[in-house]
């Protein structure tokens, strides 16, 4: 073991605290292990195990295509309704699950927090990361179903990871805010399921907003960061006709970063009191 002779000073912190990325990097192994633990635990003692990662998006896709595609007969611009919804469900379900898991993560890790030191940011990050496996599985399903529905692969598919990031970052940003707030105000526990449930209706998961939304509401609608991610996914999967409305897309990204940066500041400011409060 290397003898670290660097002196550390523990004293009351004042003013703005830096993000301390170096410290996060030092604990990257723990971050990985915690995400791995969350994945293992999620599917241990379930009868179907990881099959749930397949069933969840597929069943929702079926229900949505029947309700919105067959019964409500929403416009799909000629795309198979199943693929149209699945391409949107992928970022949305990742976001919803990651937000729920991460906002609860600090409180759920209360014991560890009050017994061991490590950068607390690791906890919400690992909670969001643990959802990535499910998202990869859902992506595989999408890729398998595309030829089945006669949707050709396009080069834009290679951009999927970028748009995935557009769903990852809002989940992370929201998770940072809500997990830190949850330590002090347990109201968050009730707010998050509400956000996720209501969010489903103001996010174009089961429909094409382009065909339903009056022009004047367009900008406001894009304040929802998931709209950008979903449009991106549909563009990659279904082609040019589904391209995002770029001004709105960039606004989605802007909103995401605003939430993320303020969230990180709030998190770092309150982090030092977590162990005393949780």
């Amino acid at each position: 073991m290397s003898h670290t002779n660097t002196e550390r000073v523990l004293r009351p912190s004042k003013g703005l605290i830096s993000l301390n990325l170096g410290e996060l990097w030092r604990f990257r192994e723990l971050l990985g292990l915690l995400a791995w633990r969350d994945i293992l635990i999620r599917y241990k003692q379930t009868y179907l195990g990881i099959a749930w990662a397949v069933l969840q998006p597929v069943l929702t896709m079926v229900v949505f295509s029947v309700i919105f595609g067959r019964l409500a007969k929403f416009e799909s611009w000629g795309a198979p309704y199943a693929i149209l919804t699945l391409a949107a469900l992928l970022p949305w379900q990742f976001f919803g699950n990651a937000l729920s898991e991460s906002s609860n993560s600090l409180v759920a890790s209360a014991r560890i927090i009050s017994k061991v030191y490590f950068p607390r940011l690791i906890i919400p990050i690992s909670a969001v990361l643990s959802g990535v496996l499910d998202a990869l599985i859902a992506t595989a399903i999408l890729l398998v179903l595309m030829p089945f529905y006669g949707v050709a692969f396009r080069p834009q598919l290679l951009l999927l990871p970028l748009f995935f990031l557009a769903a990852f970052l809002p989940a992370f940003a929201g998770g940072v805010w809500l997990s830190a707030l949850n330590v002090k105000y347990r109201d968050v526990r009730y707010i998050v399921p509400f956000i996720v449930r209501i969010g489903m209706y103001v996010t174009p998961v089961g429909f094409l907003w382009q065909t339903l939304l009056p022009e004047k509401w367009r900008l406001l609608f894009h304040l929802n960061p998931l709209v950008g991610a979903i449009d991106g996914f549909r563009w990659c999967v279904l082609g040019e006709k589904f391209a995002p409305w770029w001004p709105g897309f960039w606004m989605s990204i802007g909103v995401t970063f605003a939430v993320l940066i303020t969230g990180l500041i709030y998190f770092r400011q309150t982090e030092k009191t977590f162990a005393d409060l949780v």
Partner: protein
Amino acid sequence: MSDPIIKISGVGKRFTLGESAGHDTLRDHLAAGLRSLIGRKKVVHPVSEHWALRDVSFDVNEGEVVGIIGHNGAGKSTLLKILSQISEPTEGEIRVRGRIASLLEVGTGFHPELSGRENIYLNGAILGMTHAEIRAKFDEIVAFSEVEKFLETPVKRYSSGMYVRLAFAVAAHLDPEILVVDEVLAVGDAAFQAKCLEKMGDAARHGGRTILFVSHNMQALRALCSRAVLLQQGRVAKIGDTASVLNRYLADATDQQTSRSWSGDDSPGNHQVRLRSVHVADEHGSASGVFSTSQRIFVDIEFECFEILSTLTVGFDLKTSEGDVLFRSYQTDQRPADHPPLKLGTQKWRCEIPAGLFNFGTYLVCPRAHLQGHYLIFEGPTAARFDTVLDHGVSPFWHKLKNRSERAGLISPILRWTQLHG
């Protein structure tokens, strides 16, 4: 290298109790508005500050094993938490050279659904070991834990002994420059505790490891620590060689007293159970503080229960004046049918210590309560201290012992002797 490895200067930690005036946020306004709407008056608690630690300063040199003792609430755990970087000091500073690993609990982060193997990796990482370190020491950890056969079994199927051994095994293989250990040796069986103590002692003597060690286990403190710090109400009351600090601690513990009571929220306990009083008397109801060993002794524990907890265990440690535990007793030691019924509110349970057990000496009663298998609710402020006079002898050979002289041994039961034929 004459600089101290840890330098603690003027450290204090303040907690604010009750409603704080500092939270003047929009949300509070909202909440206040709502409350007045539904006509519920907000109970205004006076803001009170509590300094869990104040003006604590001392140095620890490299390779030293320093014991930290003090009653519950004296600030030991708060100090360890600040040292471990878990919580921030309100004032003062601590300078640390080297990597600190803190062991404030055994099995931190253990997950019941995960196997022994998975938990070794997880727990190791949480305690600050790198993946490579854990892999290198994996076999050693497994051997130390004695649970080889159950490595692939989820730890929720482990017996509590196996669980503790595995958790300890990981912790025992931590290799930091500074190890901060809280009262973790209180769990596990005696043989395994001894093994861990030995391992810790080795690390200090041969590995040059610096250890800060909180314990109520006087034997362990005496065996391991060269120096000790006595904390009282958040302040350093005495620093010095272990023997003299321990003597001071025990002397302060209590003078002769056979009962002690607490009121309000300062009493040991939590939101579920609070200790109210402990009373020790003999079968005549005398509580003079000097008991004859020919009499039964009753320990009455009064506590307030706010929640019916099916796994609540209430009891006490009976300690010698040296602080060693002579025995421990809980109401749940008996058959379930004989457990005294638990009800909400204040109640009193009586434990009967049979006559003819104690030797001549001074004994301490330290009440404790657990949620079995979960956590400690309160433990160990010395609630009573009494002397015994040895006079339960039934044989002329014991006459000499009657005049208060001591018979060898911690206890002096009269056992049955017979002749074997054949």
